[in-house]
Each structure stands twice: as C-alpha cells, then as structure tokens.
C-alpha cells in the first residue's frame, strides 16, 4: 500500500487494524485511536482520497490502495495545509487528539464540496467527536479553510 505517496510492505498480521498498522508498524502516530468502533472519528484517514475510519478496516484491505494520513498534509517544516492553518487561526483544537481525524474529514469534505453550504459543513464534521472545543471553533475553521483554499 502507499501511505502519503510512499510504498510500504504488506502488513503481516491479517487482524492488524489499519489504524494500528499506521501507528505501530509504520510509526505514523498522528492517526489516533479513540474508540475502535467507528464512532469518534479520531482515526479518520483518506483511502483513495475519501475519508474512512482506519479502525474499521483491516490493514491488509488497504493493500493496493493509497492511504493519506495527517502527516501527509504538509511537508515537514513547510507551511501548513490550508485546513491545518484554518484550525490554527480559529483555535479549532485544544488537546489535539481528535484533530487529525477532523482534519482528514474536512480535507475529504472540501475535496467533495469545495464551496460547501453551512449544512454540508455541519454534516461534514458531524461524524467526528470533539470533547474540548464544543465545535463552534471547528465550524469557523472549516469556513476559514474554504477561504484559505481559494487564496
């Protein structure tokens, strides 16, 4: 499978979840695990460009696919991705644990709807739980990300 554009060997254990494979076999610990039953969204990654729960996939299932994780959004030391930048400007994060999942969900949302309606934004972030922010700042961040993406 390719992760952030780099090819990796196939996972050896079929019962390894994609989330665990990314974190513990590939060392990409930016993808977080918050519930392992698909509700919280902390583990959201892009599979061939669309956001999915990495805790609800076996790693072997990602063979032959492109996986994108939060580490792939911005080059090390380079400027932040517009969605990351927007979350920073709007304080769309506090503890930062749910953040990678939100970022990947929003990246997927904006790929699908570059100019989302407020309703689409609401639904686009409605599959991720955040226990710190109360979501207001995350909503503002998505609006800001749309602006930054246009610039």
């Amino acid at each position, binding site marked *: 499978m390719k992760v952030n554009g780099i090819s990796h060997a196939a996972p050896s254990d079929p*019962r390894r979840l994609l989330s665990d494979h990314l974190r513990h076999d590939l060392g990409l610990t930016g993808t977080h695990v918050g519930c*392992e039953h*698909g509700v919280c969204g902390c583990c959201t990654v892009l*599979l061939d460009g*669309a956001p999915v729960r990495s*805790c*609800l996939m076996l790693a072997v*299932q990602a063979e032959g696919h492109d996986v994108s994780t939060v580490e792939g959004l911005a080059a090390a030391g380079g400027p932040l991705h517009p969605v990351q930048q927007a979350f920073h400007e709007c304080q769309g994060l506090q503890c930062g644990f749910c953040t990678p999942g939100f970022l990947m969900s929003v990246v997927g949302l904006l790929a699908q709807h570059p100019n989302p309606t407020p309703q689409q934004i609401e639904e686009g972030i*409605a599959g991720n739980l955040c226990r710190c922010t109360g979501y207001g700042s995350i909503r503002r961040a998505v609006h800001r990300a749309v602006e930054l993406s246009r610039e």
Partner: protein
Amino acid sequence: MKPPPFEYHAPTTVEEACELLGSLEDAKVLAGGQSLIPLLNFRLARPAHLVDINRLRGLDAIYERDGGVAVQALARQAAVEDSEVVARVCPLLTAAVRLVAHRVIRNRGTVCGSLAHADSASELPAVLLALGGHVIARSTRGDRVIPVGELFTGVFETALAPNELLAEAWFPASPGPFGICEESRRHGDFALAGAVRAAGMLALFGVAPTPVLADPLDPTRGLQPSGDLEATPEFRLHLVREMTEKVFAA
C-alpha cells in the same frame, strides 16, 4: 478491543468467493466492514474465517434494470448517495441512504452489506421492503432471487444461506409520493423508530425484530416493539404514529 484470531481470505472472483463460503465452516463475509469490524473489535463476533469480498472485480455497479435500480455488493453507500441513476429512478433510496450514519461511514459501507446485516433499526432494509424489491443471492449453485418479503427472518437474521453471497439488491423505482422519516438521538444514530412510505405502502423500522409493513391508517396495529434505554415500547408506538403522519403528510 482488538479482533480475535481468524483466518483471512481475499478471493478475487465471485466464483472463488462462493466456493470459500460453501466450503468453510463459520465464515463471515467482510464487505464494507462498518458493522462487522466493530463487532470483531468488541469480540462480540468471533468467526473462524473472514471472506473479504472487496477484491472481487466487477461487483460494484449501480445500474437501471427492470424499472428499478440494481445495486451490487460492492457499491458503497456514498456511491449510491451520489448516483444520478439512483436519484432519477429511486430518489427514495437517495434520501434514505443519506440517513445512514455519516458520510465517512458511507464511504466504506455498502448497501448490500446493510441488507445482509439486517439490523432492524437501519433504514435500507425498510426501504427495500416498502418498495417491494428483492436481492440476488449467489452461490456455487448459481443465483437465487429472494423477494424482500422472504429476506428478513429475525433479529440480524436473513434467508441467506451461509454459502450465499448477497450479490445484488434491486430497488423498484420510487412510485408517486414517497418519503422516509426517522427519529434518532443524535444525527446519524440508529433510529428509535422510522417510517418509509412508497406510494401507499408503509414500512417501519426500529420497532420490530425485522422491518415490517404496516397499514398507514393504523400503523401500530399488532406492533409489539421492544424497549431499551432510549425508548420504551409506548414511546416507540408514539413515534411510529408521528413518523407515519409525517411521511404521509409530505
């Protein structure tokens, strides 16, 4: 919350998949995985074998046939949601699939998987029932058409044999007035109760071991819903009446 041990199979042809399902003891089909993998993670399901059908080729079509729309086993719910064919031929299905969990789940989850999982609180079995559709069960012996009236046999139980793969679901075109209405605790949660209308037909979900057809004029007749933390039987019956009124008011 890590899956228990299982033997993993990833067939690349339908024939191979059917052979595996026919020969393996205690095998489960892994399609979108959005229901099965949580069960594995909780170790509530411990199948000896997982037959992953995601590598089957040519089984993800959504196409028009026989005055309805056919959705194959690997068509993701998101693809159905975005499908112009579905929107044109069976807009009820478009509306219903939007109520299934969240987009991130629908990106992976499949329509056929929802039907095979047969959660009585989920939307799509009730939609198939209201429309009077069918599914095609495939096995090494060939295809078998199961009308929706025979498909759902109990709580999480269907008429599919262990060696059969739910290869395709066929949803007749939405007739005249249609609608779906459900009440859930949070956006995207399973429904406490829901109603699907297809012209004069009414199917209810979340209120019986399987989705059920009901009389629009007396929707709760004969219903004996179970109670849980979020809804007593009485509240479910109340919601059934409200949901029915809403779908028929539209």
